[in-house]
């Protein structure tokens, strides 16, 4: 009999492990984790939010990486800068690389005749004899000057230096000085601006781009002598991810060891410890399998939240292990325990349905994961775990000191006014708490080291790189409309720059003028005979050889007959990508939104275009915001920080609504399960009060409540529900009461161990979760004991 039972246990365990392995394999093969914040956020409600979701994550400013090469002689660094730029230009992950290297061929040769349509020269001059004479006289002086050598190659084709004018127009407005042909800042570092194709807030893709950049640098000859410094939003998102993961891992190792020791101490059985981990592993895999089956992509934050919430499931095996009775089989023990455990699991699952109904993709995924996870862990605890646990165990009811602790708790006074006192205290603390209630700036939860911010400020100033927070948005029905609008507001913006409202602006029309402007310039070009005659007249008495300007005449002839330049044609040039990132088509384009992003209703019939102008050194946002009124809202300032914070606030209000519904569902479920409103109050009362008490204490301590605090509160409430349910249970058996206490103490200690460690973290997001859950567990435990209804009846039974 023992042999056959052992064989059955081993067989069942093997099947269980096999199922887990298969699930694991399935998950590993199908799971696609998205790190793009957009697939986690709720559907945007306002135009700004929609723009933010659609494009800003991939907007020009957020995709810029600032690169500095230092630690060697400037000549060496200049070589490295050129080498790195050449390598990155070959890499599809980067859409633009600039290092100050002056290339007169910033227009490909085929587009060169377009220079007369792109440069503003013809707005104020005509290519007539007078203008050409003046220009050529200057060129003679240029030729005789120290800069003469620079000019000779270009002079026959471009005597009015349009290419030079365009190069100046297209170079960043506040670029650093050029030494050895590349940008070198005051500290002697070579600087580069690199634009990634990936969105700035997609740490996964940014990580790839940055790894490629580092690899390119490491592949350069002589790179060992130099150092590579990176900055920019994309780099920051990678740093934060790495830093958070590193600390979470490190804390995780320590608390896991503590957790193992605690369980060994509590149950004195290594096999119980190992087998006790199986239900939660089953739950996690079941949740993941459900996610990958129903969703093509899972967001990283959803997973993080999900695993946090799944922490409740660790209670299930602990309850089973603690509630095994001497003389009863595992199965008999679990059967006695199951009604209550099922009530806890079912009510949690029903409550999480509210999250599913929220309509926010991130929250729906969270609900699917958590519900499947809890069910998986609960059902395996009920049906599989008792059958594989060893039949011999120590009844924890006899744990030394436990009886005394139980008596101590029972003897605590339980005044009826405790709920009133706690409620009043919570109200007072919430009213007098300092600071604002909500923290909407998710970035504050993962702050950057001051050193990185200083480096960023220094590089940004040196490179004149655009502001990450502000963008100027131009709305028009067509791409050309955006360019025309851009050209139209340029004088206003130039005036604002003069007034000091901002340091600089980069408008799309800086790269490509609207069609009307191009056409007007084209019409001003002289015909072949007129130009030849004008040249002859202009060069009279000058030492230029005859026919030296034939290439110039050829280009003007070509320019006169060219079809006007469109953004699509311009894209072939190195600067085309820059323009492409500033001109965005909206609506009717399924490519715009990433897969798995929320389905914003987009009217497919009406496409429109948006121009994104980057701003640098914004000193007076109000003056820029006033542009909106002057342009009927067609040009407006987008405050990315504000828009993203309003998104977070919208997200939170969805969570709060879901929570409200969840609480109602919970009340109904618990009342039905316990068949008594009074008993339901004894379970839900302590849980609710403790939750508000955590909130009040954190607020009193000056903590602003973020999404992460909310999720941690939900986890703590889930744990609190268990404590209250089990303390409320009437058994009339003192030994069973001691087992309940034992289970609860093990649960509380393990939660305190894991989350208490997180509370010491230096990273606010980890601290937020750790502190909230630790406080929650402590308050839930105390209140569910102090508000337990039947201490007297227990004592009566014991006597």
């Amino acid at each position, binding site marked *: 009999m023992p042999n056959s039972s052992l064989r059955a246990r081993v067989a069942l365990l093997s099947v269980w492990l096999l199922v887990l392995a298969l699930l694991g394999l399935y998950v590993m093969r199908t799971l696609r984790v998205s790190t793009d914040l957009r697939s986690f956020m709720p559907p945007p409600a306002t135009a700004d939010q929609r723009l933010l979701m659609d494009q800003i994550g991939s907007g020009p400013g957020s995709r810029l990486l600032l690169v500095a090469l230092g630690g060697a002689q400037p000549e060496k660094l200049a070589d490295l800068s050129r080498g790195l730029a050449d390598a990155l230009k070959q890499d599809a992950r980067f859409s633009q690389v600039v290092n100050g290297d*002056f290339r007169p061929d910033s227009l490909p040769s085929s587009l060169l005749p377009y220079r007369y349509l792109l440069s503003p020269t013809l707005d104020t001059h005509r290519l007539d004899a007078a203008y050409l004479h003046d220009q050529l006289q*200057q060129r*003679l*002086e240029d*030729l*005789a*000057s*120290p*800069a*003469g*050598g*620079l000019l*000779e*190659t270009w*002079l*026959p084709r471009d005597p009015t230096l349009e290419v030079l004018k365009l190069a100046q127009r297209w170079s960043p407005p506040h670029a650093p*000085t*050029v*030494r*050895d*042909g590349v940008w070198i800042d005051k500290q002697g570092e070579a600087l580069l601006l690199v634009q990634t194709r990936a969105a700035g807030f997609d740490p996964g893709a940014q990580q790839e781009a940055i790894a490629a950049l580092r690899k390119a640098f490491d592949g350069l000859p002589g790179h060992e002598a130099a150092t590579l410094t990176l900055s920019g939003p994309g780099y920051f998102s990678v740093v934060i991810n790495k830093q958070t993961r590193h600390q979470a891992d490190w804390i995780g190792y320590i608390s896991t060891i503590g957790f193992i020791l605690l369980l060994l101490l509590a149950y004195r059985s290594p096999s119980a410890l190992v087998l006790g981990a199986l239900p939660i592993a089953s739950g996690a895999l079941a949740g993941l399998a459900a996610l990958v089956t129903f969703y093509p992509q899972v967001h990283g934050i959803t997973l993080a939240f999900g695993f946090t919430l799944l922490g409740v499931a660790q209670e299930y095996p602990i309850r089973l292990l603690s509630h095994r009775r001497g003389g009863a089989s595992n199965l008999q023990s679990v059967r006695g325990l199951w009604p209550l455990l099922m009530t806890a699991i079912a009510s949690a699952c029903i409550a999480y349905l509210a999250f599913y109904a929220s309509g926010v993709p991130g929250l729906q995924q969270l609900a699917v994961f958590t519900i499947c996870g809890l069910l998986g862990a609960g059902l395996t605890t009920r049906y599989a775990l008792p059958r594989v646990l060893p039949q011999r165990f120590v009844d924890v009811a006899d744990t030394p000191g436990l009886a005394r602790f139980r008596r101590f708790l029972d003897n605590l006074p339980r005044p009826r006014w405790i709920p009133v006192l706690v409620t009043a205290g919570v109200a007072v603390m919430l009213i007098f708490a300092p600071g604002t209630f909500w923290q909407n700036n998710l970035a504050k939860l993962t702050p950057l080291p001051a050193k990185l911010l200083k480096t960023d400020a220094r590089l940004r100033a040196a490179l004149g790189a655009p502001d990450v927070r502000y963008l100027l948005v131009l709305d028009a029905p067509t791409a050309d409309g955006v360019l025309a609008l851009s050209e139209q507001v340029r004088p206003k913006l130039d005036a604002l720059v003069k007034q000091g409202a901002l340091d600089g602006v980069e408008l799309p029309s800086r790269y490509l003028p609207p069609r009307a402007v191009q056409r007007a310039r084209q019409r001003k070009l002289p015909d072949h005979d007129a130009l030849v005659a004008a040249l002859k007249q202009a060069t009279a008495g000058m*030492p*230029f*050889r005859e026919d*030296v300007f034939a290439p110039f005449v050829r280009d003007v002839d070509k320019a006169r007959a060219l079809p006007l330049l469109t953004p699509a044609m311009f894209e072939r040039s190195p600067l085309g990508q820059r323009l492409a990132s500033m001109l965005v088509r909206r609506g009717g384009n399924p490519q715009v939104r990433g897969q798995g992003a929320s389905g914003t209703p987009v009217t497919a019939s009406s496409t429109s275009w948006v121009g994104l102008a980057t701003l640098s050194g914004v000193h007076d946002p109000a003056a820029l915001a006033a542009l909106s009124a002057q342009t009927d809202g067609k040009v407006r300032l987008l405050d990315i920080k504000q828009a993203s914070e309003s998104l977070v606030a919208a997200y939170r209000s969805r969570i709060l609504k879901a929570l409200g519904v969840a609480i109602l569902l919970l009340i109904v479920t618990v009342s039905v399960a316990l068949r008594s409103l009074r008993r339901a109050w004894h379970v839900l009362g302590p849980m609710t009060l403790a939750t508000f008490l955590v909130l009040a204490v954190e607020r009193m301590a000056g903590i602003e409540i973020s999404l992460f605090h909310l999720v941690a509160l939900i986890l703590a409430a889930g744990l609190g529900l268990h404590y209250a349910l089990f303390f409320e249970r009437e058994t009339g058996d003192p030994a069973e009461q001691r087992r309940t206490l034992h289970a609860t103490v093990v649960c509380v200690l393990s939660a305190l161990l894991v989350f208490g460690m997180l509370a010491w973290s230096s990273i606010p997001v980890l601290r937020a979760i750790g502190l909230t859950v630790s406080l929650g567990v402590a308050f839930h435990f105390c209140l569910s004991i102090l508000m337990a209804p039947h201490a007297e009846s227990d004592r009566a039974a014991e006597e």
Partner: protein
Amino acid sequence: MMLALASAATWARAPETAVVDKPDALAPIAKLAQQPPTQVAFAEARFSALLSRPLVVSGQLSWEGGDRLQRHVDSPYVETTRIVDGEVSMHRAGRGTRHFSLDRAPPLKALLDSLVAVLSGDRARLSKVFTPRLDEDGGGQGWTLTLKPKSPRLARSLAHIRLDGDDRGLRCMLITEANGTLSVDLLGPLAARMPTQPTRANLTALCRHAE
């Protein structure tokens, strides 16, 4: 192109015989060293493939010490170019000031290197950027220092720089760019003797043969 220096007036010592092909073959160059600030008149003719006759300008060249040079043109128009620590600023009367980095004009940088090296007697600097060669005239009167760029990058724009001198100092500076453009600078007293119709031949003769 431009610049050349050394006041012939302050170059008064008799040169020792230049010994070519010996380790210190450039020793005579050290004798050209001067204390800044120093100034010299120049007249420059530039021969370019784009032009049917050379462009001629004249004025003053000044070395202010370090890597600071000034080229002031006073005829046929007024123009001042200053090179200060790698930054070139060019001011022309009525046309405003243009700034550009010295690195955008490699031949100009080479010229600065060669001139400052010669004027400060820094032969190491000369040998760092160029392969120098010193030839003496048969009569022992004059010498020619030919500087060929060492880096292939510089050689793409600059063919060579030639400095002509005699026992009284620098007479001429000839810069041949890679595309064949030649600038000849007559220095010091010679600057006043720019022919009305300069040719490569008559200028070379003027530089080589001291009267």
